[in-house]
């Protein structure tokens, strides 16, 4: 038995050979080769649409490749369905853990096994002890944090004797502490000779946790090898298309604050997920609001937008107290919000482009009957101004690319002619060209004297666009920066709760 359980290091645990996959005419994977050895953490990086998730679904047996093989411990695997992949020891920890919210942690882990419960419980407690994790087995999974849910997912995988764990952007919804805990767990698992594929967007994590790294772009692997062979810059190069010139950063002159009244003013604003927030946004200014996911930025924005109740404090728009108004009234007063989660709160997928764009502006389109002429005109204007690629105004938004969907959402928000626009992660998951277009739109708003509150986890974005910036950390504003002090390092440090000397105060 020893021969099979301890493989020689030359033999990869998972080997993907020449995988091709197309959806209709769209080639998503164009010959992927990838090896992961026992105890390796293979970081897999790539932009949206690079084909990472398709590759993972092929490894998991959810999709069938057009060509190519998946080898597990040297054996060719026929992975017709997820259960076959599970049997082969592959376990995927999805980005959004897929637990059973109404079952306990223990039930979630133990479900689907044929062995007797007692035996399983013994193995589970042994496993938990061995890893020295703290898990309350009797809590309902629905009440766990995302990090805890991931832990449960990992336990599930390990109890199934998974030899290959796939972690799909595990840190995207985690707090800083939780990330640290997860990294310790990954280190533990490495000790146990588990192979891992670690999908991420964060380059820093690659150097922190991975042993090897692969970069995918347009369905091919552009770069692959031990982490030590690469620098951050090399990875960035691998992610960029070969002939990209670095776009010239737009030069901004800081706006003149002299004698200006703020458009938005928060005073000790406190709600669920944030506390004692005070800052101003001026007309014609872009205020960057940086911070990690979970710092309370989205909660702050949605509460201003009337989606949740205010605990204390005030918010003023153009001098007028608008605390606690409904979303409709807030929009009427002149604030609009581009939501963080486009699919959940932004787009009307199976509706036309025009009805998406006019949705927040319906009140003004005719008295009772909908003024279709005006709607068409409105839509035409935004399609042209924002260069939205559509086949027609009645194309369904779900069939647009992410970038164009985002432009549609921005168009809808701007329809209402807001005095303050809150953009929450406006370029998440959209391609470079669309990103440029979105930046141009934001700059144009600034020129028109609109106040812009830009929420982003992308520090580069904050640096490039903001006139001033504040960072949020664990529900509070912990630092603010004048234009000259906004650097990625400063923002990043403050976002993780580290206040640098000299960067203080705007």
């Amino acid at each position, binding site marked *: 038995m020893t021969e099979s359980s301890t493989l020689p290091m030359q033999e990869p645990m998972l080997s993907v050979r020449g995988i091709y996959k197309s959806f209709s005419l769209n080639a998503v994977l164009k010959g992927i080769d990838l090896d992961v050895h026992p105890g390796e953490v293979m970081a897999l990086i790539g932009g949206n649409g690079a084909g990472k998730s398709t590759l993972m679904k092929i490894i998991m047996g959810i999709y069938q490749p057009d060509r190519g093989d998946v080898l597990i411990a040297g054996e060719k695997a026929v992975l017709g369905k*997820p259960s076959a992949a599970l049997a082969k020891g592959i376990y*995927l920890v999805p980005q959004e853990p*897929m637990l059973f*919210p109404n079952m306990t942690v223990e039930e979630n882990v133990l479900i*689907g096994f044929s062995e007797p419960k007692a035996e399983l419980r013994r193995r589970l407690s042994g496993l938990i002890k061995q890893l020295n994790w703290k898990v309350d087995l009797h809590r309902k999974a629905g009440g766990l944090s995302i990090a805890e849910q991931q832990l449960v997912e990992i336990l599930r995988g390990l109890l199934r004797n998974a030899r290959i764990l796939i972690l799909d952007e595990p840190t995207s919804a985690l707090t800083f502490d939780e990330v640290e805990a997860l990294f310790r767990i990954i280190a533990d698992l490495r000790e146990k000779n588990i192979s891992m594929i670690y999908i991420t967007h964060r380059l820093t994590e690659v150097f922190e946790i991975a042993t090897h790294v692969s970069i995918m772009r347009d369905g091919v692997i552009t770069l692959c090898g031990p982490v030590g062979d690469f620098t951050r810059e090399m990875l960035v190069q691998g992610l960029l298309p070969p002939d990209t010139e670095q776009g010239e950063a737009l030069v901004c002159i800081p706006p003149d604050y002299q004698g200006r009244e703020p458009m938005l003013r928060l005073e000790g604003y*406190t709600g669920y997920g944030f506390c004692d927030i005070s800052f101003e946004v001026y007309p014609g200014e872009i205020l960057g609001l940086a911070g990690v996911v979970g*710092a*309370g930025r989205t909660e702050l924005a949605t509460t201003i937008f009337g989606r949740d109740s205010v605990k204390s404090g005030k918010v003023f728009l153009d001098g007028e107290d608008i605390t606690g108004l409904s979303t409709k009234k807030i929009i009427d007063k002149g604030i609009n919000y581009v939501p963080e989660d486009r699919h959940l709160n932004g787009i009307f997928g199976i509706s036309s482009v025009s009805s998406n764009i006019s949705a927040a502006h319906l009140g003004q389109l005719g008295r009772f009957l909908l003024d279709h002429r005006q709607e068409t005109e409105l839509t035409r204007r935004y399609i042209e101004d924002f260069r939205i690629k559509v086949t027609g105004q009645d194309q369904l938004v779900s069939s647009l690319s992410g970038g164009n969907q985002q432009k549609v959402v921005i168009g809808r928000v701007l329809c209402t002619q807001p005095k303050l626009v809150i953009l929450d992660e406006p370029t998440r998951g959209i391609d470079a060209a669309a990103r440029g277009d979105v930046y141009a739109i934001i700059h144009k708003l600034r020129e028109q004297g609109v106040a812009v509150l830009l929420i982003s986890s992308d520090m580069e974005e904050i640096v490039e666009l903001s006139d001033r910036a504040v960072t949020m950390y664990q529900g*509070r504003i912990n630092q603010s920066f004048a234009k000259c002090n906004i650097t990625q390092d400063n923002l990043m440090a403050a976002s993780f709760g580290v206040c640098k000397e000299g960067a203080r105060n705007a």
Partner: protein
Amino acid sequence: MLNLKKILKSREITSLAFVVLLFVGVGAINPNFLSSQNIMLSLNGSVVFTMLAVGIAFVIITAEIDVSVGATLGLSAAVSATLLRDGAPWGVAISAALAVGLVVGLINGFGVVVLKIPSIIMTLGVNGVVRGLCYVYTNGKWVENLPFAYKALSQAMVGGMTWFYLGALLLTVAIHLFLTRTRWGRYFAAVGDNAGGATLIGIPVGRTKMVGFVLCALMAAVAGLMYVSRIGFVTPTAGNGYEMKAIAACVLGGVSLAGGIGSVVGAALGAIIMASIGRILVFLQFSSDYDNTITGILLITIVVVDALMQRRAAEKARRERLTARIAEPAAAKGGEEQ
């Protein structure tokens, strides 16, 4: 395990407490209601609904719905009654009823699982078809003159309880144990709780749902057999509207239509409530015509209160989670929050 049991139990205990309260409350007004004889009559009278509700709970727990059980009951009752009337052996009649259930269940399951038709649409359609077949089969006539021995079956008692109800009780407990204790049984709740997650860990979602539909229809067929024995004749409209009452029984018993929550024990308790309303009204000297009104009010009140309570709990949990993220105020600031 403990925690889940607590929750499941609490849902069932709420239903049980409600049943007890209902009986005691009515008993306070009319003590005759609390006589053991009447209580037994109430229990024995709920046997058909118990079978239907327990069956339908299988489907509801997997987050689907089956509104065809009323017609399934009708057709299986008509088929078995006709065979019994014509002197066929009981085994044949029973097998025929079960075969009806099996076929209807397979058709429902096929439509929902394979053809991906939403279950409410599929089973609504099947309900119409099966009810129509009921008319075709009986030619619109009543099936009467059934063998006395078969009718007497429903009257056979064991300690004040009919054998039928005892059987239903044991079956319910057995199914409850199956659903909560066995590997396969847990699949039903898992599928209803999170079908996507179930697929990823290798639970056969489609097959589980299919089994749910088949079991549901089989239970409806069993209910049909009991119906024949209890009522003693079968009309073409037998069981008309029972599907709605069975669903109401499930909801009253704490089975969530969103799937994943609830148990067959709750469904059985709900069936007792459903079956007792008419009797209660009589004991309170109201016309039993108010049966539907009370059912409707009860149903809406219970689901609304349940939904509001669940929403409040979820909202509270969300707010606690969000509040927990806020750091202690910086040294300079006064902290009024924590």
